[in-house]
């Protein structure tokens, strides 16, 4: 069960993660393009927020700028990121390092690339304990084994001596999650954590993430392109398109009554409820290249409702109900549709 459905979210305390007006520029050989344009959201502990969007929409770039792992050719040009009250963008390297682990942590998609191939996993898992808690090697490796048991790796004491390539994809993802939650972070970011996995294993991993989140009362930011994962696992959703946020709100409401034509188009194009033999309501065209984001509404080229004002003026995010925003000139019309 999702926590938000059990009780109305209490509005007390500061959010564990607050992002405001985040802008990221990408310096490419052919000029500078804006990859993330004024993105903002916040998550409280115990809650799950999904950053939803297609490839190139800027969702991963947003996550990477939060944890300070941006590519050197990308640069945060504006906005603020506060984790448990600390503005991380103004921190230096040392300050960031102190946060990485006990406060803020990330799980990557490609577990094989994220693990050191020439070190036994037990030692890699022990690393955070040695660095942040100053434990002895022996104690730290004890902790690592305990952690492996917690994330469901069978025979952890034996497996701690194995190398990453000796684990299956699902087990590697478990290891990565173990490493991320080792120091009980306040905020856990999961960047497409299950994309490379088989369906039955995906379900196991998502369940593990959810259990850990409840157990340790973390704020979870789930970055994904999978609508169903968002529907099943998230409380709130931020829909991104072409580097911009187009819609935000509680998942149940956004998915039931989308207020942005892009969200609606995405939901409609899922074949889940489609009737065989009848064409799927597809969104025409393809996502824009970052070098060719139009000056008006980012979605204008593919939007069935686009009018003259959409070309002229970029719609601002406006409130469209309790806890919901949408960036569309005509979100009212969608409501009645």
């Amino acid at each position: 069960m999702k926590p938000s459905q059990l009780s109305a979210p209490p509005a007390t305390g500061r959010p564990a993660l607050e992002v405001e007006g985040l802008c990221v520029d990408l310096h490419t050989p052919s000029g500078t393009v804006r990859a993330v344009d004024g993105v903002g959201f916040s998550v409280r502990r115990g809650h799950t927020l999904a950053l939803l969007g297609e490839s190139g929409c800027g969702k991963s770039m947003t996550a990477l700028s939060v944890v300070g792992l941006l590519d050197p050719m990308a640069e945060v040009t504006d906005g603020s990121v506060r984790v448990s009250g600390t503005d991380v963008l103004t921190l230096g390297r040392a300050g960031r390092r102190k946060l990485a682990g006990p406060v803020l942590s990330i799980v990557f998609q490609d577990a094989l690339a994220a693990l050191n191939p020439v070190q036994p996993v037990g030692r890699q898992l022990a690393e955070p304990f040695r660095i942040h808690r100053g434990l002895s090697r022996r104690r730290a490796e004890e902790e690592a084994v305990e952690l492996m048991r917690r994330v469901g790796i069978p025979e952890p004491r034996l497996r701690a001596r194995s190398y990453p390539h000796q684990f299956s994809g699902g087990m590697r993802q478990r290891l990565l999650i173990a490493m991320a939650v080792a120091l009980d972070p306040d905020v856990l970011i999961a960047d497409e954590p299950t994309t490379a996995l088989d369906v039955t294993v995906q379900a196991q991993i998502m369940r593990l993430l959810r259990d850990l989140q409840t157990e340790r009362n973390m704020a979870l930011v789930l970055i994904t392109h999978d609508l169903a994962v968002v529907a099943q696992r998230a409380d709130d959703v931020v829909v991104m398109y072409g580097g911009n946020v187009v819609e935000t709100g509680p998942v149940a409401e956004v998915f039931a009554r989308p207020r942005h034509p892009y969200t609606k188009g995405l939901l409609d194009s899922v074949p889940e409820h489609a009737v065989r033999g009848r064409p799927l309501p597809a969104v025409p065209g393809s996502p824009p290249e970052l070098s060719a984001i139009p000056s008006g509404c980012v979605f204008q080229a593919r939007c069935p409702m686009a009018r003259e004002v959409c070309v002229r003026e970029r719609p601002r995010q406006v409130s469209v109900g309790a806890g919901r925003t949408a960036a569309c000139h005509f979100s009212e019309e969608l409501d009645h549709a």
Partner: protein
Amino acid sequence: MTDLASRPTDAVTPSRTRPPRWWLLLGRDRGAAVAAVVLALVFLVAVFGRLFIGDRAVRQDLGASLRPPSLDQGFYGLLGTDVLGRSVLARLVDAAGTTLSVAVPAVLCSLLIGSALGMWAGYHGGVRENVAMRVADVILSFPSLLIAVVVLYVFAPSALNIVLILAVARIPVYLRTARAESAELRSRLFVDAARTFGTPSRHIIVRHILPIALPTLLTVATLDFCFVMLTESSLSFLGIGIQPPDVSWGLMVAQGRQYLQTAWWIAVLPGVAIVLTTVSATVLAAWVRLATDPAQRWRLTLPRKRRGDRAAVPPEMIA
């Protein structure tokens, strides 16, 4: 290979490329353009140079022996004279023809035979691959200079024999490179796709493997060009290569070596010619490599300075 020739619009040549014309791309890249001009000049001189110099390359004038390069001695005195008073400029021009007529056929022969065998072996794998590779190993296991010496002693040291011996000695280099590329490409999806059309394997090799392996092979060939010129000069130095009064750049370096301290120009200038030619060939090969790859071609349209930047991401790929 007939297949390739019969259809000039094949993917091997970028001539089908509608938007970027290759000479426009070449113009954008100053280094490559200079290299192309240098190479063109060398070839023109090699082919037509002898028509202009007459017998000046062999005409002796002991009174004018070992003159340094200067502007006062007329056109043929520009680069000085050698110990017999022959014009170095005229000899350079004459040697260009000899050098290229040995190096170019030798490189082309080994490139053609080695690549064809290598791609064939790599694509089919199994026994064919094993046999081809063992043959290459056998050739490589003999010191090529030694074979050359033996063969050229037994047979007459003619230009044709030098070409043949150099070509055979260098075949394994191309064979190995082509085999490696082709064995890797064999498992690519677009090769599978071609197989589902029923495309015969020789066509798959020509259409899908050759165009991708070719730039690498060309780069190897330009490096080898240098190697072949130097080997030829070693042979000439041993007296079994180019026979005087014929002259090659390598032979000039060899002959001028003993005067290095008194008359540097005799040995250094032909050396410079060798370096200029090979460097130009290498630069041009690197350019061809980019220009024939549609996914990389955009780099050539950028101002030269920024190309080396760390941002090696094509604009449409930014995620």
